[in-house]
């Protein structure tokens, strides 16, 4: 039965993971993400799942990758310093096409920075932080309800595309409590199993190979080295490497317009806010208070892959205003795709942009 709760964002994320069928959590607690690990530790033991607190975040993501190869839906949750430690193995998950979900409740960086304060400073790290060329999927919730809903989406996308999917939340959304409606059941996708007799890394038209679950009769070789369709290392063929990396990118980028997720308000507007995560709440307040004033809003629930086609939906837009809890990481991505003016509204230190902050930018822009 659908039930209503008054719940914290981090707990809602854990509940979303469980609803999506997650049965493995590996990680290391870190503020402001710890409540996710705490809740998973309590609940997984009662659902036949496994919770492991590893020695650090490197081992946490490694355990998640291993668990996923047994066919289990697996996740970890962390914040900036732990996210930095995970970067090498995130590349390994991408190269080995391992479905998993990585939650980052962003706090102020660099380094240990501000453990208890909100930030969105890891948005480019999640896109580019591991070495080599690749593409990722990153979702950004702006409410407790979306901490649940987008965690479910993250698992489904990970299964469908065989990629690590990032839930890039922030301390404000992770720690606030508000209404959460937990549905009776959720749509839960499963990775497509490998057809017997098919090569384990040979992809069809959708560019996603079938999954050869460990223990299901396959003697499959899994390596971070450039590999052929059998999974064997073949690290000196320029063509094979180029084809592999291009496929890993294309399976995500080719789907971006079909998987993207956003809210579009007033697409006829000349002045348009673009936001993701907590600053979206301030933008929503500004639009509510200025209703009828013809201000547009593009709220991205999925930031990566960046669906530039969404920008073209605002046909009359001359000015885009982009409030972020960083020094303009996504505003630069927007600048690449639009002719109009892009005004970055950075905010560091942990405080959320106030409505007055944005009114002032709006007045100056007009």
């Amino acid at each position: 039965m659908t039930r209503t709760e008054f719940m914290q964002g981090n707990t809602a994320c854990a509940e979303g993971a469980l609803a999506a069928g997650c049965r493995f959590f590996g990680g290391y607690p870190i503020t402001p993400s710890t409540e996710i690990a705490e809740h998973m530790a309590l609940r997984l033991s009662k659902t036949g799942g496994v919770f492991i607190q590893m020695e650090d975040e490197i081992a946490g993501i490694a355990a998640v990758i291993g668990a996923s190869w047994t066919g289990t839906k697996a996740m970890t949750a962390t914040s900036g310093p732990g996210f930095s430690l995970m970067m090498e193995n995130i590349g390994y998950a991408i190269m080995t096409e391992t479905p998993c979900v990585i939650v980052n409740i962003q706090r102020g960086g660099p380094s240990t920075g501000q453990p208890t304060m909100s930030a969105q400073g890891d948005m480019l790290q999640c896109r580019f932080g591991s070495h080599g060329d690749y593409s990722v999927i990153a979702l950004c919730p702006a409410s407790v309800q979306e901490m649940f809903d987008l965690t479910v989406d993250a698992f489904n996308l990970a299964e469908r595309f065989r990629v690590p999917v990032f839930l890039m939340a922030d301390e404000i959304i992770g720690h606030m409590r508000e209404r959460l409606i937990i549905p009776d059941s959720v749509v839960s996708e499963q990775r497509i199993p490998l057809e017997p007799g098919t090569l384990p890394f040979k992809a069809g038209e959708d560019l996603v190979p079938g999954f050869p679950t460990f223990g299901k009769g396959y003697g499959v070789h899994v390596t971070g080295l450039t590999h052929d369709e059998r999974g064997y290392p073949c690290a000196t063929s320029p063509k094979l490497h180029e084809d592999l990396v291009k496929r890993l990118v294309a399976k995500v980028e080719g789907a971006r317009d079909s998987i993207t997720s956003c809210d579009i308000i007033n697409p006829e507007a000349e002045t348009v806010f673009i936001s993701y995560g907590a600053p979206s709440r301030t933008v929503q307040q500004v639009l509510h208070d200025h209703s009828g004033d013809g201000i547009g809003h593009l709220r991205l629930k999925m930031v990566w892959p960046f669906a530039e086609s969404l920008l073209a939906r605002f046909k009359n837009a001359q000015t885009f205003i982009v409030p972020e809890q960083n020094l303009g990481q996504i505003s630069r991505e927007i600048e690449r795709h639009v002719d109009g003016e892009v005004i970055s509204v950075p905010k560091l230190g942990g405080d959320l942009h106030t409505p007055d902050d944005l009114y002032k930018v709006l007045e100056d822009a007009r």
Partner: protein
Amino acid sequence: MRHEVRFSGFGGQGIILAAVILGRAAVMYDNKYAVQTQVYGPEARGGASMSAVIIDDEPILYPKVATPDIYVIMSQEGFEKYGAAACGEAEMLLDNTLVHSRPACRYIEIPATREARETLGRDIVANIIMLGALVAATGVVSRTSIEKAILDSVPKGTESLNIKAMKRGFELAEVESNR
């Protein structure tokens, strides 16, 4: 009608729990919208603890408290850090066992810690006395809703103690309001 309620005291008094119970009462039993936030800094571990609840009939967009209209203050340091600026139309409930200052706004003195200790035998329910007083003084949620939310939130075996504390809070606020 949007209400912004700010709770402050010292770590261990159950300031955050009081705020969570209030938000829960609004959302689960009054069918309103609520957002609860809190200060997570290391100063909250023994220093001045602060938590805020916004309650509204409409969905809450901007989730942070800007100018509280209701304060619940349970320590002198909490007053100085989070209550001293209260003015205008705001209303403050303060635990006069522990808070010596008085604000520029309207206020009600509730001897919550003394009552908890002397009448109920447990300091630890002072926060629930304040919560009862808050509801009786402001009507920000209904009395039946706060009772249900308290029962949802307190440890098994302490229900009757906490309900007594809540009712004592109702009485203390009524006495003060009638003065």
